[in-house]
């Protein structure tokens, strides 16, 4: 009996720190976001006053062109970065698997960007993209080509933050696909080659179909990362020029800290969380259907 009582003791306190952190610093702040979304919060001299305003913030969000623009920009950003990094990451994984001499070095170097601080990634790309000192314009002028503004116009800035994100996070896709690739039974590949398939046929008809579950997992992960993105875009473009790269996290930061409007910022946050959850539910609903087809 004493063993059971002892178990009860350790059983509970082993879980308590986790529950306390999640409740006090996860759930409680979330509830404060919900509360503030229904009112106007004014900050005066360190104190905060809350005034109930009902659905006012949500009505404003419905009519806010900048919010809708920001959702669209985020959508483009998420789709572009996910697709490009999936293609490149899968290709790199297959190349590494085929290589003999470069395999070990590649497995090491190709991971670097994923562990570099996003802030430093921004610094690296400022040094590359800057029109005056950037290495990209230096290369262009050496080749006798006209120098570019890069982050100066809307389309260029958007292309640049997509390129930077792909450079930064393709390694994650690469690692996931490469470890799935290592898990493929070599007998399957031998069977394919015995049947007369050459290497590109084997890759296309045997390897890639077997990698699909890993590719799907990587796709979900990259979508989540894309929705969360903030650091590099904040430092490289601040959402500009104009609002051409104002992805959703940049918009919320601006509302909360530049306009000091915690009520509206909370409402926009809440709507964003809602959209993310609907997307998550859809993905979970679609997954079994895809699996049955495969």
């Amino acid at each position, binding site marked *: 009996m004493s063993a059971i009582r002892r178990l009860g003791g350790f059983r509970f306190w082993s879980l308590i720190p986790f529950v306390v952190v999640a409740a006090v610093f*996860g759930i409680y702040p979330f509830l404060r976001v919900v509360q503030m979304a229904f009112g106007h919060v004014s900050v005066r001299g360190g104190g905060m006053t809350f005034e109930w305003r009902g659905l006012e913030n949500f009505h404003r969000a419905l009519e806010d062109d900048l919010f809708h623009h920001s959702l669209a920009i985020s959508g483009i950003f998420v789709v572009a970065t996910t697709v490009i990094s999936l293609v490149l990451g899968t290709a790199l994984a297959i190349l590494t698997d085929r290589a003999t001499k470069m395999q070990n070095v590649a497995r090491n170097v190709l991971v670097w960007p994923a562990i570099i601080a996003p802030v430093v990634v921004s610094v690296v790309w400022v040094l590359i993209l800057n029109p005056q*000192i950037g290495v990209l314009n230096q290369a262009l002028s050496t080749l006798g080509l006209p120098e570019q503004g890069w982050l100066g116009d809307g389309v260029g800035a958007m292309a640049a933050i997509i390129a930077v994100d792909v450079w930064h996070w393709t390694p994650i896709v690469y690692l996931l696909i490469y470890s799935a690739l290592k898990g493929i039974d070599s007998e399957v590949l031998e069977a394919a080659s015995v049947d007369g398939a050459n290497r590109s046929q084997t890759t296309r008809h045997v390897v890639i179909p077997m990698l699909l579950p890993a590719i799907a997992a990587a796709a979900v*992960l990259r979508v989540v990362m894309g929705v969360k993105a903030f650091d590099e875009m904040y430092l490289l473009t601040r959402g500009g020029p104009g609002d051409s790269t104002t992805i959703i996290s940049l918009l919320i930061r601006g509302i909360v800290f530049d306009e000091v409007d915690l009520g509206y910022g909370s409402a926009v946050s809440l709507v964003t969380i809602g959209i993310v959850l609907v997307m998550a539910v859809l993905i979970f609903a679609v997954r079994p259907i895809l699996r049955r087809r495969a």
Partner: protein
Amino acid sequence: MKRTSWSSETLLVISMIIIAVPVIWLVITSFNAPREIISRGFEFSMSNYVRLFEGDSAIGAQIGNSLIIAVSTTVFTMAIAALAGYSLSSLGWSRTTTGILLGISALIQLIPPMTLVPGLYVVLQQFGILNSLPGLIILNVLFNLPFATLMLKVYFDALPDSIREAGLVDGASEQRVFWSLVLPLVKPGLAAVGIYVLIMAWNEFLMGLTMTTGGDQAPITVGIASLVQPQAITYGPMAALGSLTVVPIIILAIIANKQIVAGLTGGAVKG
């Protein structure tokens, strides 16, 4: 014996160049004299590094802050996650309890941290830990805890129940079984998750930016960000500080490559 595919090797080398050259360029720029950076020449100089720590610069304090935040976050996260992961894995919690806690973990991983920032800001202010290291440590723990717990739970799940039962039969307490018997068996998992959390906390920027005023309570990532200004002539110091931040991480990546790969792939899938 696999034959060498020269096209694969070549494409890989090109990819590695695309990855490594920007990082090497950063380090080269950091050793270039400021006027040579502007005029696109090169002259070896340490002046960018010297300038970082001149006068009443907060950089030194910020590097210290980041070290404290990264180490404390790792220690607290690993302690809390190991206990919770083991508890959920082996101590007979109901499916409902496990489901709710893992569900909350998944949600914290899923939603953009920025959407919680308004709430976190007022809560930290309420507790009087806004613009302080304890506040930043707690938030780093919060955002690393879900995946660390899920990862370690998977490692604990892989151990047979008979280990714990044998310990209990021999008269050891539950705490002792956990500490002396089970924990040593998941050392590889602890190393992989721990290094991953350490890197995440060292790299963290968003909470440092929004929960501090950017002075000597801020982490080094915020210090770097304050140098990244479109028009300012701070390229040299910016590159120097970037190099100081990134070189330790690259060295860690080369030494502990196996653990980092395990942490990244696990962290990615669980995240």
